[in-house]
């Protein structure tokens, strides 16, 4: 075994100083437990928030570019004064959306693509009137983005042939039950009566009170946009890649592609600040753990000065002496982080079992591996100063040390 004697001396010294070793181990374990628990908690919380947010929206929305006034450039030598009224953005189809859809299907990071036609309308039942958003979908594709069938609270998820699925709040507002009829008014006398096949509840008030899911064709005719799709919803495999993928889609298609991160800039900002503060806390805890290891080993080097001198006189080289203390640092880091990791997981388990149960903290075994690896490196780095000191001790003086 390489470095057998270094390991032997390191472990025997640690074992001999049981009390000291135990104290610092507990110290490291507490630090690592805090880091593991905090990291798991925040990761779990953020995953939960993101999942809830993205559970009801696509990662990327592809839309037609805004309509702009085209202004002729002035003739050479003349100056042009322009008074421009911005154009109203009418509801428009994405040109050649079928090709765009097929092209998006081939992008490697993209997991689902769903063309949607969406526009405003009124829902009417008797005297009651509500403004709604008509959402015409290609059901199998759309369900891969928002699994709406899982949120049906009454009736069934079925669209097409005059069937619609509406939000629970809207159903309450209009006094509708599954099987009732609903009149939709797209403006300019385009009306149609649909059958409420199912009622969903996504838990987002805006959606539950406004969304009316229909077949694409029916919405196209209600909005007078035959064959149109106004939005293409896209999901990607890594949600944090959404921004990059959106930029790529814009480059490829010339359409406006907006990622969920842009749509939810406020949320992203909050999550980022939260992550930053977690990292700060972790860094400072890690720093105090490292200083703890360094100080215990420094004291140990002083306590063992005479023994270091003897070992040097017996033919132990400077490098061997250096490694003895580096190994001690590494062992402290490793053992402390394993203990601390287990304690951290214990805390996570306790939180999941006895906590407020607002969300579940997933247990990621890699976190433990990462913590152990990081703690080992920290241990070695912290041991560097005392180890160098031990290695550079003059054996003559070290032996005289009492």
């Amino acid at each position, binding site marked *: *075994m390489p470095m057998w004697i270094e390991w032997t001396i390191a472990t025997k010294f640690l074992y001999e100083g049981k009390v000291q070793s135990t104290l610092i181990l507990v110290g490291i374990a507490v630090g690592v437990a805090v880091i593991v628990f905090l990291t798991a908690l925040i990761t779990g919380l953020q995953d939960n928030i993101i999942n809830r947010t993205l559970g009801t929206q696509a990662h990327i929305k592809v839309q037609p570019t805004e309509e702009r006034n085209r202004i002729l450039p002035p003739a050479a030598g003349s100056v042009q004064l322009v008074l421009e009224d911005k154009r109203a953005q009418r509801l428009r189809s994405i040109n050649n959306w079928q090709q765009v859809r097929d092209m998006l299907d081939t992008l490697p990071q993209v997991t689902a693509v769903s063309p949607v036609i969406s526009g405003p309308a009124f829902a009417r039942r008797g005297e009651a009137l509500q403004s709604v958003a008509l959402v015409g979908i290609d059901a199998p594709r759309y369900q891969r983005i928002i699994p709406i069938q899982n949120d049906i609270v009454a009736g069934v998820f079925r669209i097409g042939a005059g069937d619609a699925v509406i939000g629970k709040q809207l159903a309450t507002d209009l006094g509708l039950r599954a099987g009732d009829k609903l009149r939709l008014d797209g403006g300019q006398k385009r009306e149609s009566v649909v059958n409420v096949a199912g009622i969903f509840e996504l838990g987002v008030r805006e959606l539950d009170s406004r969304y009316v899911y229909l077949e694409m064709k029916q919405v196209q005719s209600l909005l007078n946009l035959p064959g149109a799709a106004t939005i293409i919803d896209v999901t990607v495999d890594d949600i944090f890649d959404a921004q990059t993928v959106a930029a790529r889609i814009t480059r490829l298609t010339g359409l406006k592609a907006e990622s969920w991160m842009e749509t939810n800039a406020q949320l992203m900002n909050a999550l980022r600040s939260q992550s930053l503060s977690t990292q700060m806390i972790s860094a400072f805890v890690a720093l105090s753990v490292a200083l703890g290891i360094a100080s215990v080993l420094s004291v140990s080097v002083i306590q063992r000065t005479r023994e270091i001198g003897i070992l040097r006189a017996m033919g132990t080289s400077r490098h061997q002496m250096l490694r003895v203390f580096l190994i001690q640092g590494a062992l402290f880091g490793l053992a402390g982080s394993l203990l601390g990791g287990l304690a951290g997981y214990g805390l996570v388990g306790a939180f999941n079992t006895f906590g407020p149960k607002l969300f579940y903290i997933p247990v990621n075994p890699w976190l433990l591996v990462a913590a152990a690896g990081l703690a080992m490196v920290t241990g070695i780095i912290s041991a560097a100063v005392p180890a160098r000191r031990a290695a550079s001790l003059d054996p003559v003086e070290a032996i005289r040390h009492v």
Partner: protein
Amino acid sequence: MSEHDASQEVLRMEGLRKSYNVGKPTEVEVLHGLDLRLQRRDFAALVGASGSGKSTLLNLIGLLDRPTAGELFLLAEPTRSMDDARRTEVRGSAIGFVFQFHHLIQAFTTLENVLMPLMVATGKPTREQIDRGRGLLAQVGLEGLEQRKPDQLSGGQQQRVAVARALVTHPALLLADEPTGNLDSKSATEVFQLFRNFNREFGCAVLLVTHDSRMSEQCDRTITLVDGNIESDV
């Protein structure tokens, strides 16, 4: 002084000087150019008053310290230009130390302490090395105490462990700094007798620093150091 034979030479010093605080106003020369030879069969005492430079000389010979001027040959190899790694290596293989205070390492058993010079040089001890260690412990009269920790032994026993440790590498030179200074007279005699035996058995040169005239009188050769000069060598 025995007849000179180059093949039997363990140690040769030529104009060895040692100063402390070199280059500072407090610079002081402790050893003023010493010439000395030791052969394999030599059993020599180094005597001198406190401050005469005995310990300084012993540290130089033991490669624990470097001379300011002059040269020191160990087994015909010049040592002044050796780097630290080589000095450590030679120290581990060619020299055995016995200090005034036993200086065992508490975390290890008696046997492990004896094997320490071998373990730091070659790692996990072999069967043969363990047997050698046990044999040495038996020779110093500590059979059966192999697994004791140093603090479970008496002062005399600890010093005998230190002697066994110094001899486990079969060094060419054994350096002992007041090895009996801390022992009662019975233990002191026993330890001294051990040195005698090993000197004869292994052909290991012994250089013994002592204050005790009874002890130096029993040595074959007495080197007297006065104020950093060898005053007599008989």
